[in-house]
């Protein structure tokens, strides 16, 4: 991937780790459609961390400040209900989660727990914002992919009967 950008005489200087990471990111639904040049710019911004089974990546209600991409292993996204914990999804390699943190600082809406030994790529919002400042194309592609993912989530969620709540109090005579 990225080595191909280098002239032949400079191939010896290529960093295989960065090239591997950029190749891997191209498979993630969140980064589909990003040109190789921009994937190569994105790849060094990620941190990598190994997690053990049962470790919590983040908890429901935590401030969201990073996006995670599964490199190896499985991660469960769960939500606490009155009946107990409910597993919403189990994510595998190339799946991304916590992506809403790239949009705002709202608290996490679910908990992410590592199911099998896992390696995750981590992209902090501040690093992503800095990258977007100089590359509008990254912002456009990632936000378009993010909208698609959100549309998929929205269609999956069953239609809920929304309780409109008590009617607003009508002011009485003074």
């Amino acid at each position, binding site marked *: *991937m990225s080595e191909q950008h280098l002239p032949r005489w400079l191939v010896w200087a290529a960093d295989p780790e960065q090239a591997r990471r*950029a190749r891997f990111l191209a498979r993630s639904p969140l980064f589909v459609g990003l040109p190789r040049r921009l994937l190569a710019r994105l790849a060094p911004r990620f941190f990598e*961390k190994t997690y053990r089974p049962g470790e919590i990546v983040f908890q429901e209600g*935590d401030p969201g400040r990073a996006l995670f991409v599964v490199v190896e292993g499985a991660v469960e996204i769960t939500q606490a209900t009155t009946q107990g914990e409910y597993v919403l999804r189990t994510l595998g390699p190339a799946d991304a989660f916590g992506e809403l943190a790239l949009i705002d600082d709202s*608290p996490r809406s679910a908990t992410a727990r590592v199911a099998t030994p896992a390696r995750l790529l981590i992209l902090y919002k501040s690093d992503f914002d800095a990258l977007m400042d100089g590359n509008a194309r990254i912002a456009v592609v990632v936000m378009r992919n993010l909208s698609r993912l959100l549309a998929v989530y929205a269609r999956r969620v069953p239609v809920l009967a929304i309780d409109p709540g008590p009617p607003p109090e009508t002011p009485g005579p003074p």
Partner: protein
Amino acid sequence: MKPGRLLAWGGLAALAWLARGLVLPVFLAAMLAYLLSPAVAWADALAIRRSVAVGALYAVLIAVLVVAGFLLGPGLLAETSAVMDRLPGLAQQIDVGLDAAVRELAESAPALRRLLPEGGDWVQRFVLNRGLGEPSDLFEHMGHLFLLAILVPFFSFFLLRDIHRLSAVIMERLPPQHVETSVAVWRELNGIVGRYIRGVALDSLAVGGLAALGLWAARVPYPLLLGAFAGLANVVPFVGPLLSAAAAGLVVVLTPGQGLAGVGRVVLLFLTLKILDDTIIQPFAIGRSVHLHPALLLGSVVVGNHALGVLGMIIAVPVATVLQETARLLLEHRRVLARRDLRRHPGRLVV
């Protein structure tokens, strides 16, 4: 605490005390690394190995310094040696002027006589005691500067080359609950500090270059030296621009044939530079993301001067900015966590 851990902490503290002399070079090296990091990030994006990228960057930097030294060095050296040669004479000239002013003041207002300083040759004494000092002091200062000139690029090289490896090791050892808390704050701070330091450097370069050009156009002697001084002094808020304007004004006053018109040109030049800096250069280079309260600005400069002299005055504002931004981000983070705890335990009062 376990005895082993206590011993390790004690050993670390002793090591830190022994290596306290390295704090300044490492701090300056970190600043240089922040300045050069965009070039390394650019090489990262091309998937070039860090060692190759940093090595090439240093080669380019050395080449640029050699060319700059070749172009500007002789002029700067000639101006410096001319100033050093003329310094005693200049100091004497200033003292004569000051003596005359003090005498005139004492004659016109005898009541003030008690308040006026005794003796004369103030500037000459200052130049001898503080400026040049004893030859041994001069050699010591030169030795320190030489050591800094070697150590700062050396440490900076390794910081640029290995910081990602160090970060990866720390990240692997970090408990998962810190990944989205402490590291996120550190990443944000890293971005702010990097932008600020690069902005200040760009601002100083622009102000120094424009001052040198303006002084050369205004036919003021020593334009390169005064321009370099204006660029460096520009880092010190309020005081810096005043000092550089005063230095240029003094040179004009003491140069035969310049007269009041020369002083007027210098004042106009530095006023224009200040307005340009405040309205165009600074907003472009630094932006408005970091803002220190004027009282904090001045306070940090005073503390910096007290701790490390001129160097302290130069690095005071970046250090104060880092401290202020760290405090702001940590407080913001604490507030977010407090809101989360309040949501999880609505009955509990979270302070």
